[in-house]
């Protein structure tokens, strides 16, 4: 248990992939084989044999140590975690060093943790007290964590896969894929995880795709519009779906395997031919559009990016989560199909093969695969009109790729949306780090709705350090009210903000929020009454008809 606790200490803390990988490799090389099933189950936050309420642990410890409850409460407030506070308290009040020979992780898990399930309260108490007496401090901290909340070290799967690849000579993507199926702490599961590759098995790794360059200069300079594939660039993550035999791998950002996060997509992809490599964008959409009363083809409304990252962080999404946050894969390229790789062929030919897969062409509002129809634009001016339309505001702009390009390294462009601007009034400022001299981290800006100011954006982007210092000095001198880190200031100062889009947000009093807001400049000549009205921003909300 001591080596595993040392590993947990090394993995714990702010993300540090290189150090985490090195610590994992050192542990995996040295750990007894019997410990591996449990170590991997705990590190992947797999199913736990037992959960003990922290209140039970607290009651047992206070009783055994004859300490008052308030003393533990003080410690928990200071430490921030009941399990850790108890471990420290027990260690402080220990008279003798931990008793008994050290036991390995699997013995602790099979002889202590697993038998707690189904045991009555007295037996649980006796078992846990005996374990506390036997364990040194660091293992004690981690055992309490395992019993109460699970390990929750948030080691990225890619890092764990890389470390396992380092010790097994398997490709890391293969290990990542196998890890999605690893749930049982058994020797057989570890054997399956680390089994040698079957000969002739294709790789499940994502293919390299060239990043988009921002389009500099007019689109006309690219030549005839008909030589280019134009697709909407949705606010999501770059994604590849790979079919291999019975397996389906869903990769995001070129390295993160999320297949077990999106069972509906995996099911939808099951019909695709063996060997298919789809390239596209993964996004979470608003499910409400499904009941669009107009009866027209319902458009997609992407949910904010942080919803997507949180959705993908959930190991086993419940049915309710999957319903509330449906995932959509928007396909825009095909790198291989059942007949083999297409990477040597021009994009035009790849798109023909993509069309032949007959993916759904209507937006799947309940989630699923989507191959949107080509943007039919008669020349650059028509595309420019699409780009300027309010409906474009739910996307990040256009993606332009040469139809005759066969090389993935051919330049591809991102044609961003034209920036929008608004004049808004500073209403709040937010303190950041606890250091008293630290600059304020964010400023909240509001526009008029009737005779009230409603916040629409929070940002400090765009202000130079000198601007911020001057603004902070004014704020410190004029604060009307403080609630925690938030200062209310007089509605006197007007700023020009730029933003990329307006999205509906029921959580905000304004009912909307600016995307990617940036402070352009202070507008000292403007009176607060000259700031924008909410209706002007509402006009930028994506309308029902759109891409």
């Amino acid at each position: 248990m001591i080596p595993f606790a040392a590993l947990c200490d090394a993995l714990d803390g702010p993300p540090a992939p290189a150090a985490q990988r090195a610590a994992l490799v050192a542990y995996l090389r040295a750990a007894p084989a019997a410990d591996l099933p449990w170590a991997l189950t705990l590190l992947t936050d797999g199913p736990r044999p037992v959960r003990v309420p922290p209140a039970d642990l607290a009651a047992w410890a206070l009783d055994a140590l004859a300490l008052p409850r308030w003393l533990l409460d003080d410690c928990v407030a200071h430490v921030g975690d009941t399990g850790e506070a108890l471990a420290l308290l027990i260690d402080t009040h220990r008279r003798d060093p931990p008793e008994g020979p050290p036991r390995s992780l699997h013995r602790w898990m099979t002889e202590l943790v697993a038998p707690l399930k189904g045991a009555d309260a007295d037996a649980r108490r006796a078992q846990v007290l005996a374990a506390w007496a036997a364990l040194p401090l660091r293992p004690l901290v981690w055992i309490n964590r395992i019993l109460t909340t699970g390990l929750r070290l948030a080691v990225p799967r890619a890092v764990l896969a890389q470390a396992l690849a380092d010790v097994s000579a398997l490709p890391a993507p293969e290990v990542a894929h196998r890890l999605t199926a690893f749930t049982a702490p058994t020797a057989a599961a570890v054997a399956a995880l680390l089994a040698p590759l079957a000969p002739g098995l294709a790789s499940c790794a994502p293919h390299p795709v060239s990043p988009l360059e921002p389009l500099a200069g007019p689109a006309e300079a690219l030549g005839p519009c008909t030589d280019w594939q134009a697709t909407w660039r949705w606010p999501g993550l770059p994604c590849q779906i790979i079919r291999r035999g019975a397996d389906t791998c869903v990769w995001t950002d070129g390295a993160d395997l999320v297949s077990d996060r999106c069972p509906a997509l995996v099911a939808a992809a099951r019909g695709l031919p063996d060997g298919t490599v789809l390239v596209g964008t993964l996004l979470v959409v608003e499910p409400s559009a499904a009941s669009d009363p107009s009866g027209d083809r319902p458009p997609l409304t992407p949910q904010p990016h942080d919803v997507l990252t949180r959705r993908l962080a959930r190991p086993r999404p419940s049915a309710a989560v999957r319903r509330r946050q449906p995932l959509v894969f928007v396909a825009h390229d095909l790198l291989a199909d059942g007949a083999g790789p297409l990477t040597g062929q021009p994009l035009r030919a790849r798109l023909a093969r993509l069309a032949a897969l007959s993916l759904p062409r209507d937006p799947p509002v309940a989630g699923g695969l989507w191959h949107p129809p080509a943007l039919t634009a008669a020349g650059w001016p028509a595309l420019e009109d699409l780009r300027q339309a309010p409906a474009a505001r739910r996307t990040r702009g256009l993606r332009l790729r040469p139809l005759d390009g066969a090389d993935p390294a051919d330049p591809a462009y991102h044609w961003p949306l034209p920036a929008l601007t608004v004049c808004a009034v500073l209403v709040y400022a937010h303190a950041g780090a606890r250091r008293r001299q630290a600059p304020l981290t964010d400023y909240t800006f509001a526009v008029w709705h009737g005779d009230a100011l409603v916040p629409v954006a929070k940002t400090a982007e765009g202000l130079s350090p000198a601007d911020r210092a001057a603004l902070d000095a004014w704020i410190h001198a004029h604060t009307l009210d403080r609630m925690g880190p938030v200062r209310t200031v007089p509605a006197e100062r007007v700023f020009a903000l730029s933003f990329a889009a307006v999205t509906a947000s029921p959580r905000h009093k304004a009912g909307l929020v600016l995307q990617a807001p940036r402070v352009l400049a202070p507008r000292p000549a403007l009176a607060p009454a000259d700031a924008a009205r909410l209706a002007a921003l509402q006009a930028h909300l994506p309308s029902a008809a759109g891409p």
Partner: protein
Amino acid sequence: MPKAARPRTPGDARPLAGICPAMPAPDPLVVQGPRGGLYCPAGDFWIDPLRSVETALITHAHADHARSGSATYWCAAPGAALLRRRVDPRGRAHLNPVDFGAVHLINGVRCSWHPAGHILGSAQIRLEAEGQVWVVTGDYKRAPDPSCRPFEPVPCDVLVTEATFGLPVYRWPPADAVMDALVAWWRDAAAAGDRAALWAYSLGKTQRILACLAARTDRPGPLWVHRAAAGLCADYAAQGVTLAPFEVFDPATSQPPPGALILTPPAAEDAAWRQALRPQTASASGWMRVRRQRHQRPVDRGFVLSDHADWPALLDTVRASQARTVYVMHSPTDTLARYLREVCGLNAGPVPRLAQA
């Protein structure tokens, strides 16, 4: 199961001085000043004042206890050079170094300095007047430290104790084991061809570590000490403390080789040299015992090594003092005072304020 079922109770339970009507509490010998520091009305002097005063009795030379600007300083002799360097480098003030245990009469109050084991020359100050004995501990520790005289318990009626770590989650592992772990970490860094950088306070922690390392033959590489601490190291050496040999680390110019251990104050941790040398990093502090605090520091490793008293040491010290009244300073919470009141049956709380005196 841990066997400390019975809490530590300093002394036996007698009626409390503060609440026994037959025995009204005498006037306090020491009160809290309005802007930090302690004031002794009977002797009209201050202990560890945070502003300029006529007469300042100093427990030790750390900046939160010793400030410049006062006319006369009293301190324990081994720490006099440190105090001079810190508060009065131009020699304008009058500085009275006194031997440990020697009694000096200051405006009618019998004052003496006793080892506190915190840093070189750190002292508890014992005050005797009006039939009472008070002891102000200043910062102290009970763990072994080859760079200063160990703490000596001083019996008293009223103990004014620090409690920086006044919560029962704090108990220090044996200092030897921590030094073993520290050297092992340094050895691993050296074996990997890296430099090791350890954040340690420039006064006290740095010299304690150097003194511990001086006694070891298993140092895996050369030692470098941040120039902010180098002069202080000379003051230690002048007092006969044996420190491991080191080179002075100037962040702008020095190039410690791979395998070196660099001791540097925490304030220098974000500096550019860290980008250039890419050392493996660690912090040595009592706060490293708690995960949340360990993660607030941008370091790879945390070593639990403190120059303050842990919870058992605080309780031991209260018991050994035989004081019936304990005032608690520098405590993050009321926990220790409440424990002494409710569990140990003592009169305990914050130091009385000047206004109430």
